[in-house]
């Protein structure tokens, strides 16, 4: 449903009037995506893997339409994402960033209801239907009990589940997740991983997950694209992509890849720098 067709991008001067996020240090580097192609099929979880600076986040922004490719195009069900109005795009794709901070004291329910923005007309207030959708999203992420808490008082794992609920309330077919577990401790990492897999199974939500965590990715992704220096180094079903040879080529790490006897799934054990 989402096709990335020979996409290249560099952080040069953008087209006038086009929105580009700045201010973060990682945007100052001439980080590049170079001739990348792949397809995200409906109902799958696709992992974008690679070391820091390999272009994962940039690629995710290109898919989400906050950046526009210099070369090539991103299409959603055949429509060029760059031509879609922002609101229409937000109804189709929702984003879960690594961290969310609220400048002011919004409650959990306030935050989740903000996901309804692209569905509301100007000046329209959220109605009972929106409230029901928001509560459903909270229930699906196990955060219904938190709904009247101020968002800023939640733990890291609770915050991330609430942000995922806000993305679900957006009622988009595709969820784009940018390192959703990177600032969480081990237990919350596992919890969020399990939540994503359950949402994919129960709701059929398609996901694109940018991460450098190989074991999170092997645990939940059906497909994988490995990036190195902005180019696709390997892509395909998870089992085909996660190999010792690919990990050495992409991450410069010597690793064992084996089916773990107790976990019952492919597990990557880093041995040392390659």
């Amino acid at each position, binding site marked *: 449903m989402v096709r990335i067709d020979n996409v290249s991008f560099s952080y040069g001067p953008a087209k006038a009037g086009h929105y580009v996020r700045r201010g973060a240090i990682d945007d100052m580097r001439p980080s590049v995506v170079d001739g990348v192609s792949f397809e995200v099929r409906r109902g799958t979880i696709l992992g974008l893997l690679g070391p820091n600076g390999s272009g994962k986040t940039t690629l995710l922004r290109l898919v989400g339409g*906050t950046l526009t490719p210099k070369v090539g195009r991103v299409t959603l069900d055949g429509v060029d994402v760059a031509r879609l109005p922002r609101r229409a795009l937000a109804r189709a794709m929702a984003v879960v960033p690594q961290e969310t901070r*609220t400048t002011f*004291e919004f409650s959990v329910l306030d935050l989740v209801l903000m996901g309804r923005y692209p569905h509301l007309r100007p000046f329209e207030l959220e109605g009972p239907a929106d409230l029901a959708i928001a509560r459903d999203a909270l229930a699906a992420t196990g955060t219904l009990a938190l709904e009247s808490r101020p968002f800023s008082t939640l733990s890291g794992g609770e915050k991330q589940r609430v942000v995922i609920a806000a993305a679900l309330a957006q009622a988009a077919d595709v969820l784009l997740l940018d390192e959703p577990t990177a600032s969480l401790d081990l237990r919350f990492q596992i919890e969020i991983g399990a939540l994503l897999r359950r949402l994919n199974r129960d709701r059929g939500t398609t996901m694109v997950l940018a991460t450098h965590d190989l074991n999170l990715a092997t645990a939940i992704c059906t497909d994988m694209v490995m990036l190195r220096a902005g180019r696709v180094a390997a892509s395909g079903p998870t089992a085909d992509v996660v190999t010792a040879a690919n990990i050495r080529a992409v991450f410069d790490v010597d690793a064992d890849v084996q089916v773990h006897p107790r976990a019952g799934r492919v597990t990557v054990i880093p041995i040392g720098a390659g």
Partner: protein
Amino acid sequence: MTLSLPGGRSDLRRRFALTVGGFGALAAAACLFAPLVGSTRIDLARVFDRSQPFSANVDAQIFFVARLPRVLASALVGGSLAAAGAVFQALLRNPLASPDTLGVSAGAALGAMIAIVVHADFVVLGVSAVPLAGFAGSIGALAVVYGLSTARQRGTSTVTLLLAGVVLSALLSAVNAFVQYVADFAETYQAVRWLLGSLDVAGYAPIAAASVPTAIAAVGFATLPRVLNLMSLGSDAAAARGVDVARTERIALVSASLATGAAVSLAGPVSFVGIIVPHLVRLIVGADHRLVLPASALFGAAFLIGCDLVARTIIAPVQLPVGIVTAIIGGPFFLWLLFTRAR
């Protein structure tokens, strides 16, 4: 005191009505009762007594000619600064932002200062040279900040915008100090009086003139509340939820600066209202800008009317600059609220 209920948003319409009704009644009451207080006591019933002509009704004359313009100027200035402050705080994602942050006030001060020093003496549509120059200065400052922040034809980054504003403020203040330094004593005295802020307007003409940019700003503000909620999560998060970030920033910057410029040109730079009122309002109505923005405008109006009432009566016949009173009343009240309601 709090209007936010645990039930969430199904009651938003009711909360909106309560907020606007409550703060609106407060502002209206301030407009009606503040003119009654002063060196001559007047009576509200006699003010609106239709049995005698206006020319014979001393109370009505004092009310409408001598005192109401000043009260309405307070309402306009307080409301504009508070609403602009709320918008700047959300847009820059910085609770310390105020209408002064981006150099708009410093620009207005420099414009007014230059008009005073060169003895500019013209009147356009009932507005004299000093406020006109002040307004022009504020718009000039905004244009510089906005130009710098978009120089590379990208969306504005809040960090760039904040830094540009702080630097521009410092630069304009330095130029202002230089102009004051080379000015003669009488000019400097007039400039210092202007910089302290005064709501002692001459009649309704300046208020009518200032209400034009304020009205334009109000139209801009009306489109903003829900988008500002999303913008306060960050521009990326807002864009991902369907907000046109560049357009929102343009509307917010221009309308907040118009409101600030109008207020500063009418009354001089009245400090503190723009930063403190939005915070006070948030403590009462919560974070939702659909409540914060109208409540800030209405409460800012009432707050400044109250402060000006104190300023002109507390050591009458001497009138204090209102900026001193806003800080002395507002500061401790704000600290008290902050620490008694801290979670």
